[in-house]
């Protein structure tokens, strides 16, 4: 931890008890959040997070959502002490994990690759929940950040939203060696090919309506990926943002408040 003084740090662990033993609370000031790398954690280890690092956000990685989603119940009592998020891999059956996480009041981040038709269908179902289900009270990202970005008409890179922009995030492995994986590794390779940054737009995306947000994110790792599914999700978000903007403008007109 002292090596990262002055930098924001995400601490990743399989064993929260070890974390609590090794990291004293006084050094938590620069910790962005704690990431638990599996939902399969013993109750005793999990209990160590109660009363430790109060208000420090905790993120649970769910790599096998269809099988592991009900393990989220193990974390339900942390929410009074820690803002909770579940990072859920988008694969068939993942929507169960999102529904339960949302029902427990956890924020969600979708760990999405290049979703196929079935996954797009589930993502569309979750997007519908996010946009219209009143009891979904916490953000479901990337939907939430993209929605706000489109509503405010202030583009934010999906690379940043997904915490995969190597300009902002570096991953340090157990041997204290910086490493990369997935999209980030490909970006690094691209950089070697002369591509400047993670969100450098690929030529094939130059005509896309959502290029300012997506920044070719869904073109990794396979550049031949057919984006129609993810574009339909972006379109739904865009329409919802536009609808909200019009509603607010209409309400402001009715109340006599000048439009911004």
């Amino acid at each position, binding site marked *: 931890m002292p090596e990262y003084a002055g930098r924001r740090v995400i601490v990743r662990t399989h064993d929260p008890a070890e974390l609590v033993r090794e990291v004293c609370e006084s050094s938590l000031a620069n910790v962005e959040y704690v990431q638990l790398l599996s939902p399969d954690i013993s109750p005793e280890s999990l209990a160590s997070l109660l009363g430790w690092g109060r208000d420090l956000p905790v993120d649970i990685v769910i790599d096998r959502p269809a099988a592991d989603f009900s*393990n989220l119940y193990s974390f339900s*009592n942390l929410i009074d002490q820690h803002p909770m998020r579940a990072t859920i891999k988008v694969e068939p059956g993942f929507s169960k994990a999102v529904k*339960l996480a949302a029902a427990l009041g956890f924020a969600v981040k979708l760990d999405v690759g290049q979703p196929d038709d079935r996954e797009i269908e589930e993502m569309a179902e979750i997007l519908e929940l996010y946009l219209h289900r009143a009891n979904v*009270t916490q953000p479901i990202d990337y939907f939430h950040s993209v929605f706000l970005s489109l509503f405010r008409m202030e583009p934010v890179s999906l690379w940043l939203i997904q915490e995969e922009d190597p300009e902002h995030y570096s991953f340090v492995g157990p041997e204290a060696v910086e490493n990369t994986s997935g999209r980030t590794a490909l970006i690094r390779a691209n950089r070697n090919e002369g591509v400047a940054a993670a969100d450098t737009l690929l030529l094939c995306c130059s005509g896309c309506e959502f290029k300012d947000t997506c920044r070719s994110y869904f073109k990794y790792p396979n550049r031949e990926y057919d984006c129609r599914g993810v574009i339909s999700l972006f379109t739904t978000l865009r329409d919802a943002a536009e609808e909200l903007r019009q509603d607010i403008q209409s309400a402001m007109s*009715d109340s006599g408040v000048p439009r911004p």
Partner: protein
Amino acid sequence: MMRNNLSVILLPTNKCNVNCEYCFEDKTNDRMSHEQLSAIVTKLLDFMDGSGIPDLTIHWQGGEIMTMPAKWFETAFDLINELVHSRGRTVSHGLQTNMIGYTPRWNDIINRMFGNHVGSSMDYPNLYRKLFHGGPDDYTKLWNQKVKQARDSGISIGVIAVTNEETLRLGAEEFYSYFVDELGITSFQVNTPFPGGEANTTKDDLSVQNEELSKFFNDLTDIWVARGMGKGVSVGPVDQLVERFSDRPGSLPCIWQPNCADEFIAIDSRGFVAQCDCWVTSYPEYFFGNIFECESLTELLKNSPARQKFITRPRVTIEQGCIECEFLSMCHGGCPVRTYTYRKTIFEKDPFCSFYKSIFAHTRNVAAQLQEQQQISRHLIRVASKGIIEDGHLTI
């Protein structure tokens, strides 16, 4: 593991002074000593220290609390304060009593320990609450006398009412009028009955009447909105649901928490620890252990197979359709003891499921209508402030 607050349902006596036909408790004459109380509170505080839980809430009930002398609670209050404050913790107390044994001798400790508020129980109509020597009418008459006496002394009374077949037949209007208009009770909660504890003919007749319950509770919601909302009347759980669906903070009853194992434990006068009062008084096979016999509460809870079943329950019920339910966030499979008493297992969802869905849907609609009305009201006020309501007529 518990949340921010350790809630303990503490039964210092298993003895009762009345003879209600539908009671789920198996009564005994056991009574807790102050030494035992001190041992329990010490272990609770050790548990809180180890779990980082700052606050303790003790919900006192029996058996019947007022079969014990008020003096016992005066000593207990001082003893608990000393123990809790020496650890830098805070404690609050709640009291649930049938009020049958109430005398003004209780006033001082009710004021100091319980904030001049007690929770009691009464049904409308009362069919099953009985004295040992007298029927439901005698019980109701005595209860009314005691409640009036306590209220005349400045004590506020909240009431838990359990529906019965006559409640449902007479309807919500009569029920609400009885409690609010006739008795002047402004805080009550309505519970569904369940046949807990030793079987008898009354419990055999306690069937799950989801359709009738839905109509009753939905009507009760409408009546509360029309006559009680914003006028200091709370009717749980309908007011809590309307609040929740209006995006306002507030808690829901224990039956609808993600997992009641995260919420509280119950300890009886013999030291037995179980999930709640329903379990600790009736189902030894679901006891977590005995607090007087364990080294620490942490170890007791950790090593209890029965508690493990409670922790596991929502992970099982969620596969029984709950994950697809639009009200998952409100319910999580419902109440284990209601399930157990009807289904003989806790690993099924609550048999009142369709009733819960109905009341959730209705209160959600009510909350949406209220929000719409508030928006219209705000709009009319804005229009009025522009001076275009003339002679009481809106001219747009």
